[in-house]
């Protein structure tokens, strides 16, 4: 497979991203890749759908808010149904830089990986690295995933990632709900997926707010840790 022959879907989950979504879509389009862009509107109350459609994306609109996990999973279901070779998850808030798309899918095109994560921390190349407390949380997940699976992932919370058909099929059926990123890595690993990382730059959010606030982040730390530990004692067959 190469960049032009592979059928690639860019899944953009969006919840109330009016003002950002069109820019994010145009950012992808300006490189003229033959990629399809699918915005999953997660029950937005603003003009996200209208702006995404006007920008030329396909839009699947969930009837109510499912959270990021449910939204991204809808994208995987679409990718599976329509026989895509690769599904890329990319945020609709302008954080992720579309110039890294080809770099992100290259390990899959070359058959080197089943899932590729765009990492902010591989190279110290400037770019936005997130706040101090957030980085502490990220380091915790790095250690946890390493201890439990032996995988060395430098940016487990990154939502900029690519998946091949094997992972698409699994995630369409079963994908972690709220704050799914670190957990999804463990799920993919448990399914025998080969996971790799490439260095990317991220931008600071331009508008909207992160889906994770102060108190909630403590809840998520606990929730994700618990979920990841559960995956380790769950038998492979029952998944």
């Amino acid at each position, binding site marked *: 497979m190469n960049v032009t022959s592979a059928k690639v879907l860019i899944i953009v989950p969006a919840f109330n991203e009016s003002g950002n979504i069109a820019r994010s879509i145009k950012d992808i389009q300006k490189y003229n890749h033959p990629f399809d862009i699918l915005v999953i509107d997660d029950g937005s109350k603003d003009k996200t759908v209208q702006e995404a459609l006007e920008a030329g994306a396909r839009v*699947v609109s969930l009837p109510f808010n499912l959270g990021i996990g449910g939204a991204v999973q809808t994208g995987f279901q679409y990718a599976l*149904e329509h026989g895509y070779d690769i599904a890329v998850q990319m945020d609709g808030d302008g954080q992720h830089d579309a110039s890294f798309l080809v770099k992100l899918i290259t390990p899959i095109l070359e058959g080197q990986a089943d899932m590729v994560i765009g990492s902010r921390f591989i190279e110290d190349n400037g770019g936005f690295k997130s706040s101090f407390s957030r980085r502490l949380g990220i380091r915790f997940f790095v250690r946890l995933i390493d201890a439990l699976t032996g995988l060395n992932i430098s940016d487990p919370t990154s939502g900029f990632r690519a998946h091949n058909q094997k992972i698409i099929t699994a995630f369409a059926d079963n994908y972690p709900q709220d704050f799914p990123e670190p957990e999804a890595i463990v799920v993919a690993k448990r399914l025998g997926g080969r996971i790799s990382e490439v260095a990317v730059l991220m931008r600071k959010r331009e508008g909207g707010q992160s889906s994770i606030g102060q108190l909630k982040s403590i809840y998520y730390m606990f929730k994700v840790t618990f979920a990841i530990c559960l995956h380790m004692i769950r038998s492979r067959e029952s998944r």
Partner: protein
Amino acid sequence: MNIHFLAILLSSLMFLFVVDLVRRHKLTFKYALAWLLVSAAGVFFAVFHKFLFKLAGFLGFELPSNFIFFTLFCVFLFLSLVLTVFLCQQNNRNDTMAQKIALLEFEIKQIKQNLSKYSPSQKQ
């Protein structure tokens, strides 16, 4: 009114109420089963209260009332856990349906668009 009579009356009403809910299709049997068993046990112990006292004594409760409170507490704890399981199941099904609906709606819109391309005269 004596307490024994009151206990029998209330537990019987509870049991009949659950049966009536099932009869009127307000409760399906699957979800009513736990309540039927609990209220039937209530009637049983109200009628044969001597047995209740004996059982409490056998298990080492100093007062039969402690035994009743303890049993009720355990029953409700279990019932609420079962209800939470049902709730999660419903929640998952809801989410799956929302995803299915969203994807189907998208496909329908695509088909409509394609149709209107081929027969623009019929477009209203």
